[in-house]
């Protein structure tokens, strides 16, 4: 008599694989109530994960857009001839952190200032012949935190020699936005982490209940001579199927509702869209949807095996 495993035929490995898959499906269907509970749990957890991620990336994007709109103004001395302005423009554009450079003429500066005043705009426009404002280059950087470095560079001797007499920036606003951005990143990371932990706990608990309700079945299988692996695989696959289904439905529902929600927010809070825009669906979901689905599959499979462990000691 042989109490050790014998070399397995390849055909029996294939047969077993089909058996495990068939058992997983049959079991999920036969225990449909628990399967539905598990799917709903994973759907909720995956949805929370996707929502947290969407909120995080959109906040980051909105702040990035606001940051980059807060510009630097490099004021040009009146003595610099117009022919030299191209040289200054190119020198500023060549700076790595600079995203955009716009020339603002003295007249345009005056008109812009007049527009910003509620009263007295007529008086300001009366100064056209004696315009106190100078030509300038408005400089937009990629990131707010780069502003200081760019300001320092524009204030350096190189640019002073070219004709830059003063560099102005909205320092306080920049620092405020940087702080808000960092805070938002931390909050969203915490939300995503807490959601992930809660998801693991909820999914594991649901699957434990499912497995506990079938402990007699597991015990019988062990008495008949099934190896731990033979017992685990159908449960593992069943957990993976359920996790995959729940997460896929969550990703699909989120992808469909995301543009509707964005549209509703844009309508209700138009002041937000005046200064920044939300990311489109195709920039959010190609990243988070596969992550959510793979996480659902792995969580389902691992939770099932984790829950099984104590029933295999027969």
């Amino acid at each position, binding site marked *: 008599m042989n109490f050790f495993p014998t070399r397995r035929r390849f055909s029996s490995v294939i047969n077993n694989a089909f058996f495990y898959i068939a058992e997983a499906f049959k079991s999920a269907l036969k225990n449909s109530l628990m399967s539905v509970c598990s799917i709903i749990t994973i759907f909720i957890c995956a949805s929370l994960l996707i929502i947290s991620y969407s909120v995080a990336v959109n906040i980051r994007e909105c702040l990035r857009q606001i940051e980059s709109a807060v510009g630097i103004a490099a004021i040009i001395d009146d003595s610099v001839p117009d022919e030299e302005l191209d040289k200054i423009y190119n020198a500023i554009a060549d700076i790595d952190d600079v995203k955009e450079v716009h020339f603002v003429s003295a007249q345009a500066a005056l008109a812009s200032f007049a527009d910003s005043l509620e009263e007295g705009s007529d008086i300001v426009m009366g100064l056209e012949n004696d315009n106190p404002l100078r030509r300038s280059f408005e400089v937009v950087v990629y990131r707010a935190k780069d502003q200081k470095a760019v300001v320092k560079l524009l204030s350096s001797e190189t640019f002073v020699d070219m004709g830059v007499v003063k560099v102005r920036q909205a320092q306080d606003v920049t620092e405020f936005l940087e702080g808000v951005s960092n805070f938002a990143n931390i909050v969203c990371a915490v939300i995503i982490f807490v959601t992930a932990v809660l998801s693991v706990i909820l999914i594991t608990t649901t699957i434990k209940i499912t497995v506990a309700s079938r402990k007699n079945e597991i015990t019988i299988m062990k008495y008949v001579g099934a*190896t731990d692996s033979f017992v685990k695989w159908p449960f593992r696959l069943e957990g993976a199927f359920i996790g995959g289904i729940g997460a896929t439905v969550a990703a699909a529902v989120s992808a469909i509702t995301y543009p509707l929600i964005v549209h509703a927010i844009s309508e209700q809070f138009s002041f937000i869209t005046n200064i920044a825009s939300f990311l489109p669906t195709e920039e959010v979901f190609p990243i988070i949807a596969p992550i959510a689905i793979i996480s659902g599959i792995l969580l389902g499979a691992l939770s099932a095996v984790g829950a099984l462990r104590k029933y295999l000691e027969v």
Partner: protein
Amino acid sequence: MIRFKNVTKIYDTGIKGLKNVSFSVEKGEFLFIVGPSGSGKSTLIKLILKEEEPQSGEILIDGQNIANVSHKNVPYLRRQIGVVFQDFRLLPNKTVYENVAFAMQITDATHREIKRNVPATLSMVGLHKKARSYPRQLSGGEQQRVALARAIVNRPPILLADEPTGNLDPDTSWEIMMLLSDVQKQGMTVLVATHAWDIVDNMKKRVIALKNGTILRDVKGGYEN
């Protein structure tokens, strides 16, 4: 085939399941293990299945000490031992055919082997017409026949039956015991733990009587002999 050498089993509660028990069973032999509740019958079955470990002594199956069988190889030991329980222990969500086929599936039997052996085994226990029924649709006697079919489909050298007629009426009990006797005639070593004294006496087989974990008597030809 099976040999117990000075085996003692003490449970965590301090209760002695078996005390220094020694006996041997030859290949192809039929053995009744009788005794009142708590005498050690089920403990003996559990020790052979390695569901429990003895505190002392040796249990040899086919000359091999099963203490040397590691946890991961216990399934391969159990595949050599068919088991029938008092409460049948059928998989409720599988049909009769699937319950019996499962025992072959775990041994990597091919589809062809399963299709050949399962119907033949069901015919042997008289249930070939119930192949598509579920356990809940069967009587107690029929369920026990399915359990027996599952236990013997792989033609194991040893068959254990722990109170196989405990939940059955006298007529059905007798039918099950006759089936067990038929199985033994095919060459399997059969151990039946029971307290159905009338059946034991009528079958005139070897009997080991246990009381309080020790062997009281070891006789052949029935208990009253």
